[in-house]
């Protein structure tokens, strides 16, 4: 059984080098009272449209393809009309071609194709790859095979009307007629200008709008202007007494997230967002809980360090979106990280000042620490549920 698996892998790997544009192949055979269509569609293309790879491991197994077959048929049949002949599925197969595995749909109609060139409306993959084409070979009894190239039209694919009206002459969506640039082009270098701090700004932007990171920091800061005493929370006297614990906590967080951000950016360590995102939510819940009811057996600085490691992986997640330039990767990464720290210092400075001003208020322990932490716990729990269950509850 393992041998079968290995052989299949080997087979698939051996053709992986063949690169061509996305084509489907239609063999249309028409005779009186019968129309047969054999339609070969690449599984790789179907995966983009229908997410066939249900376990997201980068491999399509027979089980996954079999389970998805009804979806494949439904998707494809909606996107092909031949002279108004209703097509029904009568069989299926798989075929290996030079550029990968294809699903083969056998379709039939009891329709007689009118004389002349058949009118074929074709909309396959119009929504996922406008450069896709259908290569149709039409065979009528006693005639030569006629070849035609079908361009997917958005109207057929049932996409929104704005996309369907894409007909301006300069619209590249419909102009790309052939797409296998067998030639390699000289890429223009990316214009980088020294002295620009775009990734620094990205870092600042990310931390200021990364509500989960902000909330986590706030949870840590809430009690920083107080100290625990036998008679409950007591305000600190001088600013210095509040600043040093804050510096310690912020430094621990910074060092920790810089480590994991760097490791992830260099692709040395990779953790799935499916784990990291809920874990970040959990750090908020635990940090807030500790404000209400001490739960950590070690000093907060140590806990902050460990939680910071987790947040660093979260920061790394946005790196993908930012597309750091490969040529000056280290510099861009440094900028991004510095940006995070600048943004973080702003948050910390503002929050600490406000909290310090409020510290002598009698309601501080009850409302700021207590109620504030409870709100943070509630938000953290909701995020946790959202991120584990992949559902949407909150606006951010």
């Amino acid at each position, binding site marked *: 059984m393992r041998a079968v698996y290995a052989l299949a892998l080997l087979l698939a790997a051996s053709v992986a080098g063949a690169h061509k*544009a996305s084509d489907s192949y239609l063999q249309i055979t028409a005779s009186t009272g019968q129309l047969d269509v054999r339609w070969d569609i690449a599984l790789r293309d179907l995966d983009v449209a229908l997410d066939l790879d249900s376990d997201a491991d980068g491999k399509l197994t*027979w089980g996954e393809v079999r389970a998805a077959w009804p979806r494949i048929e439904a998707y494809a049949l909606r996107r092909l009309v031949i002279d108004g002949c209703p097509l029904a599925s009568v069989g299926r197969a798989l075929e290996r071609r030079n*550029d990968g595995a294809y699903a083969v749909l056998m379709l039939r109609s009891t329709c007689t194709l009118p004389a002349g060139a058949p009118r074929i409306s074709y909309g396959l993959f119009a929504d996922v790859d406008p450069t896709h084409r259908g290569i149709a070979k039409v065979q009528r009894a006693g005639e030569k095979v006629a070849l035609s190239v079908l361009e997917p039209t958005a109207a057929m694919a049932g996409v929104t009307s704005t996309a369907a009206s894409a007909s301006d002459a300069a619209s590249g969506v419909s102009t790309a*007629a052939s797409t296998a640039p067998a030639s390699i082009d000289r890429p223009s270098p990316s214009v980088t200008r020294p002295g620009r701090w775009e990734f620094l700004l990205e870092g600042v932007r990310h931390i200021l709008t990364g509500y989960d990171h902000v909330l986590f920091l706030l949870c840590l800061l809430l009690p920083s202007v107080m100290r625990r005493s036998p008679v409950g929370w007591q305000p600190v006297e001088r600013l210095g007494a509040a600043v040093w614990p804050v510096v310690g906590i912020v430094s621990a967080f910074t060092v920790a997230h810089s480590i994991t951000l760097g490791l992830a950016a260099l692709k040395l360590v990779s953790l799935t967002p499916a784990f990291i995102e809920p874990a970040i939510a959990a750090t908020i819940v635990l940090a807030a809980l500790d404000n209400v009811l001490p739960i950590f057996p070690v000093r907060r600085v140590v806990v902050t360090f460990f939680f910071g490691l987790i947040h660093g992986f979260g920061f790394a997640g946005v790196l993908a979106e930012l597309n750091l330039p490969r040529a000056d990767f280290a510099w861009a990464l440094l900028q991004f990280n510095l940006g995070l720290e600048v943004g973080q210092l702003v948050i910390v400075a503002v929050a600490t000042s406000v909290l310090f001003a409020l510290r002598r208020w009698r309601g501080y322990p009850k409302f700021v620490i207590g109620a504030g932490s409870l709100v943070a716990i509630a938000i953290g729990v909701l995020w946790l549920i959202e991120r584990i269950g992949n559902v949407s509850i909150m606006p951010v």
Partner: protein
Amino acid sequence: MRSLHALTGALAAGLVVAFAAAAVNAAPITPTLDDEVIEVLPASAANREDRQLRKRLAARPDDVRLATAVARRYLEQARESGDPRFAGLALAALRAWPDASAAPDEVLFLRATLEQYLHEFDAAVAHLRLLLARPGSERQAQAWLTLATVLRVQGRYAESDGACRAIVGADVYQTACLAENAALRGETAAARRSFETMLAARTLPASTRGWLTTSLAELEERDARAGAADAAYRNVLRLGPDTYAAIAYADFLIAQRRPAEALTVLKDEARTDTVLLRLAIAGTLARSAPATRDVAEMRERIALANERPEASIFHGREQAMFALVVERDPERALALARGDVARQREPLDLLVLAQAARASGRREAIDEARRLKSSIGLHDRRIDALL
């Protein structure tokens, strides 16, 4: 009229191949077990970050930031792998803006860049001009540079100069852009000096250094200074892996009748169509053992691509090189090369046309190549030697 002729010729040739290869290497798969792997998807299909980005884009297709991030990733993959499907996926990521005139700057720029990748040069120029006519275009250094590049590929050097001059705030790129055109026109000494001055700067990023050195190598190659070209190519490849430079160096080595060295230069490159073509050509010339396999595979890939009839026009250059050297079919090579130069007029395109014209022994084809070269204003001693 002549180019129409060439197009029909190439199209007819493509059709013949398409029919000859009716069922290119298709074999039924009959899986029996559910866990049997039918297909291995490209790495990005399983990449979690990519999947997440795509999922978010599906929910918000008109989010400019997301759409351009997805399109950029696909474009990068298209360039890295030579797999044109990724360019199609990238275009689809931008489909919320079908009307180019209303598309945000970044979307329009990416679309033009994808068209450049897909060799839709006229569309790319039209979109870049549309973008650069907008207010604030002086900040679009990258777009001006891309426009200059596309115009250069089309052999429109004077217009390319204009685009180069509009690159402001990025001196090295403007200078290099103009020097590149100057070199193509034959202002060789000045261009060489210009490149050498820029390369003398110590603070140059490695990517820019590689780019400038490649330009210098190509300049020396066109100027028939083999020793200098060889040294420059080797300098580029010492900076790190660079597929474009490796292929250009392999072409140079093949032209220098050093096919065995060309095979060595390419041995670590992924077997994309472009690389495989050179392996097939160099292997044939060097009579190396794996050449038979490479030739058969390349022949198969060409047949496969040509199932889409217009493919032979779009890949005329490569198919002409294959027909000329491997298949020893100068007539077909000439038809393909003629179709190719109707769209794309880089020195290599004209060189292949000249080689095919020379091999076919047709007087009028040689004249045609000579006329085209002088109408563009290209300086290339390799071509002069053939005409």
